[in-house]
């Protein structure tokens, strides 16, 4: 193993080596390593190229805030771009690649962008590439897209599976550092149901990385003890590798659990989206360290001080061999102790403050580390990695080093606290924003609340979760200091000084934005793209804001903050979809006779959630031949069609008749028991809503059908009208669609077929069961219902049996001599009779438009009655329903075509209507259709051109009466 690995210590498992590749190079790490720590252990410091300037970039952080070390993980369809190497756990066989480099990471030709930087300055999108206009999409956009960018999407369907889960808790603890663990222990001790979500794979937070003590013991001992107690508690659920990404209304939290990302192969989901419902939550999300702004601060080898401590103490890696520490605060400066303890030479502590504490002085003295106060680093220098620094302030000259640990202080992770609109507030003591108004039920604790010292973290964590905070355990923590003097930018820095590393925003970009008047926070953000990368400015926002404040002579609170929105870290779209994709995108409803139809060669189509049989082709038949045969069978013999999908609603009660009179536009209460009536209903605004049949089974019992598409909407409408308008009506409404299988049996021989299915005690003769009558009967051996209604215009019966007998009934109908037909033939048959369906009941048609105006009852009140009489709905030039046929017998018609008067120009002014439905009529031997046409009532015999600009078709048509077949209806009654 590499010389950079420290011989012992850390939280890696040296007995479990892990092999992986980076840009094709075979490397080795250990279980417990992140990709970042394993790369550093192998001496790999250059890991990516920056977004705009293609500058060499290394590893800046040791956590999810990483802006530089973004890599592509895995291969083929599973390739995931823009993954932060600092949170990716390595596993055997992991394939990782660097991004945004051409042709190779070390020799990136596009780093010439760095020399072109004047055109890539703030607002370059708005200033460059303006002319000529025709070049925007063809030349500039592809150029910019290739030159600037991050990883590549695989472009293939995601091969992984995702899961969703909901959990309930009394308290959700967000973060498993010292504050979070103290909170979880406190809530657990009180018996609360606790969920603790920690984004890392290990609990402990900063305690994993900093050499601290609690109650006189190493802090990790306390962490292990806390974890053991929480794991043993039946009321606690620990979710590691789980990032809470958003706080939503009503105590609802979203979390992303990386279930399988760290495994070479996984049977389970890759990630899981948690919806956690908890009335209380503790925000213990810690803090993120700020970089300092000076020239070349993005060079590989320049790292945040806290990250340096993580790599040394947690991962047992030396991130360099000769280090300099540059910090404006005690916590960052104390990194000299960690470096020295790891045997790394420390060339200097550079501190811009005039004085440093005695403790720091003593520490430096003990390790013989030179200290420069009132000093800065003006520039970090090197080719692709850090080689030296240029000193400034009270110091001067160059110092050689290959590691620079920098710290500009810590920003509490306030993101989640502002998801409900709460604005962070400025805290002078730690020179950072802390949470302001919190979402309901949420309390912040520890570093997230601005308490950067360990003892405070433990105490506030406990207090935030406990309902009785008097029982604070007596935990002493080793001394630490959060003293800081802000330094937002080294005043005389040399060269590009980065603020937002991921979007390549420098301090001079911010100065340019200020100079050009983009001084408001939201303008600054959009003009410079500060904070708009995938890291959402976790390491840059506050610094950028502070720089703008000083440029405009305002305080930071006066300058304001941008709004943080969910998700906190990038979320794979797959987790949002979860298992609901492809065929599982929504439920698929199959009728009870689906398998029966499938076995007989039926073809199916999606009709809303339902699968419906379109036709039943026989061997060698085309679809049209099959449909034509099915239509002729119904007209000449007997066919049957599965109409189970129609909505069925059972309405019972003493006021059922009166209630349905209110719901439907025509009269229902006068239907005699044992009879059926066609009925339609309006919406409150007066337009037609839905139609179907209403059967009265007894004085207090009605059974109605709705269209397939509107089944749920009609039920909701009836519930609404019952509960909100007619609550005194004694009526019970129940959907029974799923309870009944229903078939339409139609054709001149339908009665003969039906007679074979019913018992001798059921008389299906014309006298006993006339048109529009209904009867209960035993059908094919089971109790069912017969309705003599017709959609096809033939003598027809709809037969309903309990759903489980649907397939048996279909079989019995076939045995009795009827032939199955599908949705296509059903459509042709209804068109031949001019019956409107969904294409005509399109929500914009009135009863009069559809030729139903005469059925509007004048004897009762009903939904939509008043509004249906509005002048605009009664205008004579409204488009009304007409029949159409082509003037040339062989010509076809297309639904959607616009109707232009014959000879007139095809433009919008001459557009008089459109074709709503069209089909080839096997009965008539030519195409027929329905159309909505202005002045339709008096247009019979007139000719129009049906224009279809989409397919560049135009067909001469003639307006004809709507009922094409058997207009007298003689077939119905026979």
């Amino acid at each position, binding site marked *: 193993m590499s010389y950079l690995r420290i011989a012992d210590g850390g939280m890696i498992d040296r007995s479990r080596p892990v092999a992986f590749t980076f840009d094709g190079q075979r490397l080795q790490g250990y279980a417990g390593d992140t990709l970042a720590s394993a790369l550093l252990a192998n001496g790999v410091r250059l890991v990516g190229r920056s977004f705009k300037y293609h500058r060499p970039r290394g590893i800046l952080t040791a956590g999810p805030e990483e802006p530089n070390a973004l890599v592509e993980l895995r291969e083929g369809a599973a390739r995931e771009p823009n993954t932060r190497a600092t949170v990716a756990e390595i596993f055997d066989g992991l394939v990782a690649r660097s991004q945004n480099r051409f042709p190779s990471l070390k020799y990136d030709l596009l780093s010439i962008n760095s020399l072109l930087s004047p055109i890539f300055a703030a607002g370059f999108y708005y200033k460059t590439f303006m002319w000529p206009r025709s070049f925007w999409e063809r030349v500039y956009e592809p150029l910019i897209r290739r030159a600037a960018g991050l990883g590549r999407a695989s472009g293939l369907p995601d091969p992984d599976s995702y899961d969703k889960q909901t959990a309930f808790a009394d308290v959700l603890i967000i973060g498993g550092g010292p504050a979070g663990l103290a909170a979880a222990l406190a809530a657990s001790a009180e018996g609360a149901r606790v969920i603790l979500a920690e984004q890392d794979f290990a609990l402990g937070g900063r305690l994993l990385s900093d050499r601290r003590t609690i109650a006189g013991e190493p802090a990790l001992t306390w962490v292990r003890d806390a974890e053991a107690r929480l794991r043993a508690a039946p009321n606690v659920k620990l979710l590691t590798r789980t990032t809470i990404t958003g706080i939503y209304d009503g105590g*609802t939290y979203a979390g992303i659990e990386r279930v399988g990302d760290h495994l070479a192969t996984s049977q389970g989901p890759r990630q899981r989206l948690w919806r956690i419902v908890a009335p209380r939550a503790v925000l213990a999300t810690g803090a993120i360290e700020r970089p300092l702004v000076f020239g070349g601060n993005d060079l590989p080898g320049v790292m945040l001080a806290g990250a340096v401590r993580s790599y040394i103490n947690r991962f047992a890696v030396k991130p360099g061999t000769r280090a300099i520490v540059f910090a404006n605060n005690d916590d960052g400066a104390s990194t000299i102790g960690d470096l020295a303890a790891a045997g790394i030479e420390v060339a200097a502590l550079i501190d811009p403050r005039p004085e440093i504490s005695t403790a720091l002085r003593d520490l430096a003295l003990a390790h013989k580390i030179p200290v420069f106060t009132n000093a800065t680093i003006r520039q970090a220098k090197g080719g692709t990695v850090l080689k030296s620094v240029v000193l400034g302030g009270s110091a001067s000259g160059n110092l050689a080093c290959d590691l620079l640990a920098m710290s500009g202080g810590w920003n509490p992770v306030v993101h989640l606290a502002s998801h409900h*609109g709460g604005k962070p507030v400025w805290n002078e003591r730690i020179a950072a924003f802390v949470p302001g108004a919190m979402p309901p039920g949420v309390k912040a604790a520890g570093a997230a609340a601005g308490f950067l010292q360990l003892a405070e973290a433990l105490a506030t964590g406990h207090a935030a979760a406990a309902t009785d905070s008097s029982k604070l355990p007596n935990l002493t923590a080793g001394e630490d200091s959060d003293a800081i003097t802000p330094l937002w930018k080294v005043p005389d820095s040399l060269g590009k000084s980065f603020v937002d590393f991921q979007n390549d925003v420098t301090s001079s970009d911010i100065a340019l934005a200020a100079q050009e008047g983009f001084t408001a926070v939201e303008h600054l953000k959009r003009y410079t793209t500060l904070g708009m990368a995938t890291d959402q400015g976790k390491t840059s926002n506050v610094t950028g804001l502070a720089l703008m404040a000083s440029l405009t002579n305002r305080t930071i609170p006066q300058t304001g903050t941008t709004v943080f929105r969910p998700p906190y870290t990038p979320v794979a779209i797959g987790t949002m979809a979860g298992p609901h994709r492809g065929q599982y995108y929504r439920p698929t409803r199959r009728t009870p006779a689906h398998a029966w139809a499938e076995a007989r060669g039926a073809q199916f189509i999606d009709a809303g959630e339902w699968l419906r049989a379109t036709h039943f082709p026989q061997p060698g038949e085309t679809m049209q031949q099959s449909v034509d045969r099915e239509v002729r069978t119904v007209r000449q013999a007997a066919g049957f069609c599965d109409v189970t999908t129609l909505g069925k609603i059972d309405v019972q009660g003493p006021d059922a008749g009166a209630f349905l009179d209110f719901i439907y536009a025509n009269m229902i209460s006068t239907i005699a028991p044992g009879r059926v009536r066609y009925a339609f209903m309006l919406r409150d605004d007066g337009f037609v809503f839905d139609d179907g049949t209403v059967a009265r089974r007894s004085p207090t019992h009605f059974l109605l059908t709705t269209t397939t598409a509107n089944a*749920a909407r009609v039920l909701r409408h009836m*519930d*609404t009208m019952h509960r*909100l*308008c007619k*609550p005194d009506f004694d009526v019970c409404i129940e959907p029974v669609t799923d309870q009944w299988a229903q078939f339409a049996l139609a054709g001149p021989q339908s009665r003969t077929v039906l007679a074979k299915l019913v018992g001798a005690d059921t008389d299906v003769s014309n006298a006993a069961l006339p048109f529009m009558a209904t009867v209960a009967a035993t059908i094919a051996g089971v109790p069912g219902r017969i309705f003599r209604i017709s959609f096809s215009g033939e003598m027809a019966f709809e037969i309903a049996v309990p759903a489980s007998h649907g397939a048996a009934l279909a079989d019995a109908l076939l045995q009795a001599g009827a032939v199955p037909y599908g949705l296509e033939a059903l459509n042709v048959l209804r068109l031949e009779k001019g019956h409107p369906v969904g294409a005509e009941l399109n929500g914009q048609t009135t009863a009069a438009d559809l030729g139903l105006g005469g059925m509007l009852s004048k004897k009762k009140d009903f939904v939509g009655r*008043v*509004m249906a009489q509005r002048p605009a709905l009664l205008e004579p030039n409204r488009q009304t329903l007409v029949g159409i046929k082509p003037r040339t017998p062989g010509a076809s018609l297309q639904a959607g075509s616009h109707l232009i008067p014959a000879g007139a120009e095809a433009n919008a002014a001459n557009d008089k209507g459109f074709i709503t439905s069209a089909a080839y009529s096997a009965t008539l031997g030519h195409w027929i259709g329905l159309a909505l046409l202005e002045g339709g009532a008096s247009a019979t015999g007139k000719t129009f051109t049906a224009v279809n600009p989409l397919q560049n078709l135009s067909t001469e048509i003639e307006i004809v009466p709507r009922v094409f077949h058997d207009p007298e209806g003689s077939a119905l009654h026979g």
Partner: protein
Amino acid sequence: MRLLCPFCGERGLEEFTYAGDAALVRPAPDAGQAEWVEYIYMRRNPAGVHGELWYHGVACRQFVKLERDTRTHAILSSSAV
């Protein structure tokens, strides 16, 4: 968002459908078109407390009346209709 159904208890938003402003009063059948137009089309859009109806369609099929603050989504009261 979580809504409190008086019949079923607290449930997720996805179980409910918004059913309109609870303050609307259905006009009398003979109220005339002007009043009906007001009822059908005109809506208040208050920044603050709003009385509203929700339909618990996938469960009890009852209507719930809520007082909700449109600025914060805080639900102040919940009752059966």
